[in-house]
């Protein structure tokens, strides 16, 4: 069983904090493992875990759509106490169901208008137009929702929820049917910018960990009805990897922007210059930005390497190692007080005769850094 | 042989209670079970015209038996008057001067539909004779038949209306005024034996029984008029 840790120190452990507080929440699914959860009043949190583990059930229970007992408060309002719950529509939340559940018999525009009309914090029209454009829904506005393609319906559903702009926004695999290119290049940046302007507490459920990594800083993990506290992304990534997901584990590292030149970003990482070339969004000099570094992309050498197409070379210290299920070794490295992971094969590990505490050189290509 | 002698009698709904009173006596003397189907005379007429297997039809009027006779759906010479309906006016208990009451009555007056129900047309004739038909036109509320007119009055939804005297007798009420018979044409209730009849002979016995003096006396107690002797002669009784 997971041990629930308070997220932001003392602030969230008291029950009259302003965020979401869930204590001892029990549904028919998790009779033995009551759910605890403390989240601040804004921020984006991922939620992932195996199929059938109870993610949708948790969201439904939070929304009062599932029989449950326990204690839920949000923004100092009690939503659930024991068996009694506040009616769903009185909770200041919005929930996107796994099936989009658009209002049938109406057009996409009607759906959006309805969500905006009953919003407690309606968005300005200009903002709505901007979102419509970014989500590519404009040409579909007057189509009956029954005729939308799977991905189009999902985009309308997400947009409907954004138009509603509730203080707590729960999403259940909202973009699973949209092509990854659109998700990564258009939708996620739009969402990130939107929530920067209109802060809310967001729980973003997805089986695509990239999605979560590009949106959230912390992630909840659900496994067999066990809910973890919000975890740093690299811990969740590790859990996913240990379950044998083909995607390698990526670590989140932070560095200061030095310059942006011809698509190549020069960063300062503890005094050493590193380069990143797969960047989206706008970076300003002096900003500290977050990047994802893939464990499988890192190679380790004992001597400082010669000229190669690998741009980045960091002196690191090996602090721990762990054998992975498929025979590889995961190394925990540290540099400039940040921790990240590198995966190498067992053979390399033996050939290089690595030892804990030893100083090595970690090499990775500029393309291995994914900009958030 | 009682087993295979069933006499199917179609009887106008209003006469059914009376028939049920006099039947046991008949059944005691004839080895025949009488099976009663009651309904509005109109419905029964339709059924007989479409060859319903009735042995005897006791209509509440004269028109339909006549029509059946004309169309040849009944045995020749079987048409006879078996009872005489008496029109009564239901009035509030306290009243004494009925004619004046009828004149000055401000509320609805209930009567059976003059177009389809014999008691309705009798009521119309009575009102016409009293010179009230035109005057009271807007106050008239028609029910489907005399039975429903009675229900309307009995439930208190109306206080004045035309019903059959037999109904008032059966219910043991006395707040009615028997309209003088000269105000309306006699409500002759006639019977016929359809050609479909499987037991024309037994049906004839029942017809004769109904017209017998003993039954007529019983009917008189039940609120029916006295059948003048002339009817059986002018209409030519059946000869078997």
């Amino acid at each position: 069983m997971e041990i629930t840790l308070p997220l932001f120190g003392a602030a969230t452990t008291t029950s009259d904090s302003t965020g979401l507080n869930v204590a001892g929440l029990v549904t028919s699914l998790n009779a033995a493992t009551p759910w605890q959860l403390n989240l601040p009043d804004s921020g984006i949190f991922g939620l992932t875990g195996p199929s059938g583990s109870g993610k949708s059930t948790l969201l439904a229970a939070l929304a009062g759509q599932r029989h449950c007992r326990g204690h839920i408060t949000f923004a100092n309002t009690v939503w659930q106490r024991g068996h009694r719950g506040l009616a769903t529509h009185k909770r200041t939340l919005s929930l996107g169901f796994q099936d989009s559940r658009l209002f049938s018999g109406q057009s996409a525009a009607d759906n959006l208008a309805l969500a905006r009309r009953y919003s407690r914090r309606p968005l300005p029209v200009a903002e709505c137009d901007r979102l419509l454009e970014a989500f590519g829904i404009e040409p579909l506005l007057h189509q009956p929702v029954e005729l939308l393609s799977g991905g189009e319906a999902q985009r309308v559903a997400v947009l409907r929820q954004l138009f509603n702009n509730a203080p707590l926004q729960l999403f259940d695999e909202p973009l699973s049917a949209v092509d990854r290119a659109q998700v990564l290049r258009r939708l996620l940046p739009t969402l990130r910018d939107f929530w920067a302007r209109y802060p809310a507490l967001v729980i973003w459920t997805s089986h695509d960990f990239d999605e979560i990594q590009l949106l959230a800083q912390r992630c909840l993990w659900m496994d067999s009805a066990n809910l973890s506290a919000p975890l740093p992304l690299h811990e969740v990534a590790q859990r996913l990897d240990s379950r044998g997901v083909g995607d390698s584990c990526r670590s989140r590292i932070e560095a200061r922007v030095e310059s942006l030149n011809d698509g190549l970003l020069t960063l300062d990482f503890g005094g050493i210059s590193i380069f990143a070339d797969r960047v989206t969004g706008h970076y300003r000099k002096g900003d500290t930005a977050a990047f994802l570094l893939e464990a499988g992309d890192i190679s380790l050498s004992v001597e400082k390497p010669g000229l190669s197409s690998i741009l980045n070379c960091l002196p690191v210290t090996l602090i721990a190692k762990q054998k992975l299920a498929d025979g590889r070794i995961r190394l925990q490295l540290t540099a400039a007080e940040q921790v990240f992971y590198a995966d190498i094969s067992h053979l390399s590990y033996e050939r290089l005769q690595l030892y804990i505490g030893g100083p090595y050189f970690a090499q990775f290509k500029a393309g291995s850094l994914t900009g958030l | 042989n009682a087993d295979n002698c069933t006499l199917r009698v179609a009887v106008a709904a209003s006469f059914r209670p009376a028939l049920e009173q006099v039947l046991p006596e008949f059944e005691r003397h004839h080895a025949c079970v009488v099976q009663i189907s009651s309904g509005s005379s109109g419905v029964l007429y339709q059924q007989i015209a479409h060859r319903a297997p009735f042995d005897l039809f006791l209509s509440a009027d004269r028109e339909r038996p006549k029509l059946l006779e004309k169309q040849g759906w009944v045995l020749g010479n079987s048409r006879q008057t078996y009872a005489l309906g008496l029109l009564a006016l239901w009035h509030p208990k306290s009243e004494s001067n009925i004619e004046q009451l009828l004149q000055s009555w401000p509320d609805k007056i209930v009567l059976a539909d003059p177009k389809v129900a014999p008691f309705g047309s009798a009521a119309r004739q009575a009102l016409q004779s009293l010179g009230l038909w035109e005057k009271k036109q807007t106050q008239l509320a028609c029910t489907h038949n005399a039975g429903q007119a009675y229900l309307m009055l009995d439930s208190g939804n109306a206080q004045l209306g035309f019903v059959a005297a037999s109904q008032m007798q059966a219910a043991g009420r006395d707040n009615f005024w028997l309209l003088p018979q000269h105000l309306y044409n006699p409500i002759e209730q006639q019977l016929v034996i359809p050609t479909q009849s499987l037991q024309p002979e037994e049906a004839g016995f029942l017809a004769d029984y109904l017209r017998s003096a003993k039954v007529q006396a019983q009917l008189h107690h039940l609120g029916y008029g006295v059948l003048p002797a002339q009817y059986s002669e002018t209409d030519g009784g059946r000869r078997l």
Partner: protein
Amino acid sequence: MNIAIADWQALWLTLKLAGLTTLLLFIIGVPLAWKLSRWQSRWRHAIEVLITLPLVLPPTVLGFYLLLLFSPNYAPGQWLSHIFDGPLVFSFTGLVFASVIYSLPFMVQPLLATFNTNGQRLIQAAAVLGIPPWAALFKVLLPASRAAIVSACALTFAHTLGEFGVVLMIGGAIPGETQVVSIALYQHVEAMEYGAAHRLALMLMGITTVLLLAARWLGHNLAPRGLNSEQVKPVMGVLG
């Protein structure tokens, strides 16, 4: 066609009655069906059955009990006639009242069936966007249940047109006030005016056909554009 003025009047009255009844039943039936579909108690089943009961009684008998209910002799009738500012018997208001009770199941049952199957999901989808239940009913559930609503209204309308027993019992067939076309039609049949009956029946069915077709056309065209286009249709023609 040669149709009497009284028949035209009856036709107009009937359409008014059916239209008003359908409208009232829509206003009553939608919230009722919706409340029932959301009510989780075991009493819900009892109430659903209770709504079906007016169907079980023969219309005339139902009319009889309505007569008792309307009777000024008892408290409910007094109260009702106070509410409606006049007695319900013999009045158009009374007919509407009776029709509403009589046709209730026709509106509520089909609505309940749809609300039970699709309603829950849609209401949830609305609630999680902060749309309160009543708004969800009107803005989400009704637009999504167009087909069922049109069907329920058509059934109710048609049934009220053909209603007869109840109306006959409490209406009194007053021309222009309570004589609806079904009674006129029945009178024609009873009075053996078959020609007039056939004409009126044809007329009634013709008008109903047109109205029902118009209702379907409307229901069809109220749906968002595109849904009815041929693109949705799967292949139907079979290859030779």
